[in-house]
C-alpha cells in the first residue's frame, strides 16, 4: 500500500503553548545553539509558532500559526540542490540526505517558509546532556542543512513493526512527536492515501487553506482557519 504523509493544523485549536517545539527538540536531537548564536539568528526550531498582532489597544488580536516544513509536492528546495541531498521520497516527503549535503544553503534560500536550518558549528552537549540523544536519529555535524522530517524514524519503525506483524501499516499506528504532545489536538498527522484517516477528513474541511499556496508549492500541510463565534442570541 502506498502512503502520502500529511499534516493538518487547526488554528482554532492551537493555543500557542509550544509543547510541539520542545517535543521536536527532544525527538530529533536538535541542538540548542546558545545565546550568542541565537542572537545571530541561528537558533534551530524545526517547528515554530508564529504570532501576528492585529489591531491596537484596547482591541488587539493575536493569531498563532505553527510553521514547520510543508513537505511540498513541488518543493522549491529540491531542484536547487547540486548534490541531490534534498530529494522527494516516494511517500511525499522532502527528504534531506545528510551524507550528501555539502552546505551550499541553496535550499534554505529557495524555501519560502524559512524552515531549513544550517549547522554553523558542530553541535555540542555538555556531559551528560548527550545521554538525552535519541539513538534513532543521526546527529548533524557542521556544514549540514537540517529540517523537519515528519519524524521519518517513527515512520520507518512503524513500517518495520507492521511488517514483523504481517499486516499493513494503518492510520494511528504512530504519529509525529509534535502531534503526539499537542493537548488541544491542533496538530493531526496521517496518511492522505487512506481515505478514512483523520487528516483526509480534516483536509476536506471548508476551513482548510495552504500556507503561501499561491506560490504553487503544493504543500502537504494544511491549515484550518480560526472559527468565529456565532451569537445565538442575535439570530
Amino acid at each position, binding site marked *: 500500500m502506498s502512503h502520502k504523509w500529511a499534516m493538518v493544523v487547526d488554528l482554532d485549536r492551537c493555543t500557542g503553548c509550544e509543547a510541539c517545539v520542545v517535543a521536536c527538540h527532544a525527538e530529533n536531537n536538535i541542538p540548542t545553539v546558545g545565546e550568542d548564536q541565537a542572537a545571530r539568528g541561528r537558533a534551530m526550531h524545526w517547528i515554530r509558532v508564529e504570532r501576528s498582532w492585529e489591531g491596537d489597544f484596547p482591541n*488587539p488580536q493575536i493569531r498563532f500559526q505553527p510553521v514547520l516544513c510543508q513537505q511540498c509536492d513541488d518543493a522549491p528546495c529540491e531542484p536547487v540542490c547540486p548534490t541531490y541531498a534534498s530529494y522527494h521520497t516516494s511517500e511525499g516527503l522532502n527528504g534531506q540526505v545528510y551524507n550528501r549535503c555539502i552546505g551550499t544553503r541553496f535550499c534554505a534560500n529557495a524555501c519560502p517558509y524559512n524552515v531549513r536550518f544550517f549547522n554553523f558549528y558542530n553541535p555540542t552537549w555538555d556531559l551528560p546532556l548527550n545521554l538525552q540523544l535519541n539513538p534513532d536519529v543521526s546527529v548533524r555535524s557542521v556544514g549540514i542543512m537540517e529540517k523537519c522530517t515528519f519524524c521519518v524514524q517513527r515512520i520507518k519503525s512503524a513500517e518495520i513493526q507492521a511488517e514483523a506483524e504481517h499486516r499493513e501499516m494503518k492510520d494511528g499506528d504512530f504519529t509525529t512527536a509534535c502531534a503526539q504532545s499537542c493537548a488541544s489536538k491542533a496538530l493531526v498527522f496521517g496518511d492522505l492515501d487512506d481515505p478514512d484517516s483523520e487528516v483526509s477528513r480534516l483536509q476536506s474541511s471548508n476551513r482548510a487553506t495552504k500556507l503561501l499556496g499561491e506560490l504553487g508549492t503544493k504543500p502537504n500541510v494544511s491549515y*484550518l482557519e480560526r472559527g468565529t463565534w456565532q451569537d445565538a442570541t442575535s439570530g
Partner: protein
Amino acid sequence: MERRNFIKISALTGMLATLDACGRPDQELIRFVPEEDLIPGIATWKPSVCTLCSAGCGLLVRVMEGDAEVVRHGQRGLMQMGLAKKLEGNPRSPINQGKLCARGHAGLQVLYNPDRITHPIRRTGARGSGEYQAIGWDDALKELSTHLTALQSAKATNSLSFLTRPLSGQRRELIERFLKVFGAPPAVWYEPFDEAVLRQANFLSFGHGALPTFDLGRADYVLSFGADFLGTWNSPVAQSVGYGEMRQGRSGRRAKFVQVEARMSQTGANCDEWIACRPGTEGLLALGIAHVILSNKLAPQGAAFRAGSLIAGWSAGLPESTPEAVENQTGVNAAVITRIAHEITKSGSGTAIIGGAPLAHTNGLFNALAVNALEALVDRGRDQGPILGFTPDPAIGDAGQPAVSAPTGLAGLNSLAQSALGGQPNAPQVLFLYEANPIFSAPPGTKIREALARIPYIVSFGNFIDETSAQADLILPDHAPLESWLDSIGESGSLQSVVNLAPPAVAPLHDTRAMPDVLLGLASQLGGDVAKALPWTTFDALLRAAYVPLRARGGSIDPKTDDDFWTALQAQGIWSSTPGTASAAGSRSAAGASSPAAARRAPTAPAAPEFAGNADDFPFHFLPYVSQSFGDGSLANLPWLQELPDVLTTAMWSSWVEINPSTGARLGIQPGDLVEIGSQQGRVRAAAVLSPGIAPDVVAMPVGQGHDNFGRFASGRGANPLSILATLAERETGSLAWAATRVKIVRIGAPEQATLTLFSEGRSGFPHEEESR
C-alpha cells in the same frame, strides 16, 4: 594509499590511542556489570510522574540501552544501562490524557543536567563562596544526626525548621510526620505563586478547599478573569484538551471565550473578546455582570446558592453594582458589561474562571468570591451538570483538604525569618531546605537572606546549587525525579480521583540519595519515638503502605490481592476512580452551604485593592507574570526552555519589559531600548518590548530569569522582577500580593546596551564581526 599501508597505519594509531589513555585515570573508566537486561535498539516505556509543575501529569518514559558514566560504591565507571530518551504523556492519566506540555518534555534535562550535584558536599569556605569538599554519605549522615541529637538533648527540638515548596502525596506526609514526632514546628511551604487565596475562596463558596476542575469540552461560554489556563495556571494540559474540544470538538457548537486581564497572556491571545480591566477590580466587574443578570432575571437569584450569599447585597440584587458604577471602577464599558451578562446566560452552558493576577492583590479573596458567585449563577449546566467541579478526594493523603492551619506561603516565610532574626529562644538552629529557593523568589522585604545567615546549620537536599542552597553547610543531593519513587494525588484537572505512582524509570547516574530515604534513615538512627512513628526502611515501603488500601475503592485497577494491586499500580503508573462514582461537581453547592466555616462567615463587601507606592511617583502597575517556560524560575537552568521562543515576543535567553506603544511614545522608548523599572524596593533593567496587548498604565515582566547562582544556563542572565516586589499580602489569607506593586520607568539606553534575543530577528545591534573556527 595502498590498502596494506592503510591497515598498518590504522593499527598503529589505534594502539597509540590505547597507550595514550594509560596512566590517565580519568580515561581509565572501569566497566560495571549491567544491572538490567536490555536489548540494544529496543525501547521500553516506563511510567513516571511529571514534577515540573504541580498539576500531576502522568508520564511514559522511553527507556533505551546506552552507556553512561555512573557512580557505584564510590567508584566512577561506565555502565550499560537503561537511559531515558523521551517523555510522553501517559494515556491512562485522566488528567493529561497522553499529552504533555513544553515544560514537561524538558524533565529529561533535569536528569541529565550538567550542573547537578553528583555527591554529598560540605561547605568549607564562607557561605555562598562556592567552596565545598566532597564527603561520603555515612559521614554526612553522621554529622547531620549529631546535630539533631544535640537538639534533642538540649530539649530544643522545636528549633528544627523545614523550608520547602507545597508538595503533594507522601513526600508531604513524610515531612509532616517526621517534624511532628521529632517535636519541630510544621514545615514552611513557600512558593511565590501559591494558590492559597483560591483554595480558601473555593472552600467558602463551594465547600472544597482545592483548585477547581473545568470540564471545558462542554462549555459554550467561558469568561476568564486573568486565568492563564492554557499556559501556566492550575492544570494547563487538562484545560488545553478541553479547550480544543470547546472550539472544534462539537459540530456546530463553538464556544465563545472572553478573557479579562490588563496584560494579554498566552491564554488571552486565544480569546474571541479581550477586555482590559483595571488591575484588582476584577471582582467588581464580576458583580457588575451579576447585577445585570439578577436585575433582568436572566437567572434565578438563588441559583448561586452559598456562593452568592457570601457577597454583601446579593439577595437585594447588588443594587450598588450598576453597569455605570462598575464602568467607573473598572474602566470596562457599561454596554460591554450588559452584553456579556446577556450572552453568557443565553449561551446554554457558561462558566467563569478566576486565576493569576486578580488573586494576587490585597483584595484577592474578594475578587475570587465575587467571580465564584458569578460562576455559580451562570454555570447551571446543560447536559451533565456544571462545568466547574472538584476532583474527589481519594481518601488518602492531603488532596482536597481545606487550607492548612499552619502558617504557609508568605506568612510562614515571614515568621521563619522573624524568629531567626529576632534570636528568640526557639529560633531555628537547624534548617532543612528542599525544593524552595526563597532568596530568589521571595520579595526582599521578607529579609530571608539575612535570616538564613543567622541560622547556624543549614542542610539542603537540592540537586542543584541555587541562590538559597548556596547558603547551606551540608548538601545531600536528592535523586533526579526520573531516578526516584514518585507519587502525587491529583488536586484538579479530572473529575475522577487520580493517584500517580511510579518506581524509578532509570537507575541513578550519580552518588545521590532520595530525600525521603534520607529522612527515614535519620529517623531510624535517632531511634525512640521517631523511629517508631516511621518504621519503614525505604520510601517505597511507605508508598506501598499508603496506597495499597486504594484497592478497596475499586477503580481502574482490579486485582485479586494486595501484591497484585501493588505490581499493577507500579506497571501502570496511575490509579483512578471509576468515573461518576463520586460526583463532587453535583454536590458542590450543598457542601458549600453546609460547611461550618462558610456558615460562620459574614457576607463580604466589595473591596478595593491597595498598592505599594503612590500613583504620582510610581505611575505604573507592575505585573510580574509566571513564565510559560520557567514557572517561578526553578526551571531556568534547562537549555531547551531557555532557547524556547516566548510565544508572544519570540524572545529567547532573555528578560524583557512589556510596555504599551503609546506609553513608549510618551517616554521616548523605542523597541529594544534598555529601560529601568523602579519600585520602592529596588530596580531592575531589561529590554523594552512594545506590545499592544497591555494597558497603558501597566508594565509587565516575565518571572524566571535574573538568577545569579543557578548553573551555567541560568546564571547572570536577565533580571528578576520578584526582587523589586513589595511585601504586601492578601488581606485575609496572607498570601503574597505579587500584583500590587507600583513602579516607574526610565529609559537607560539604546538596544545595544540591552541583550534581548528574538527568534524572529536575532538581536538588534549584535556585532557581526568575522568569525573564525
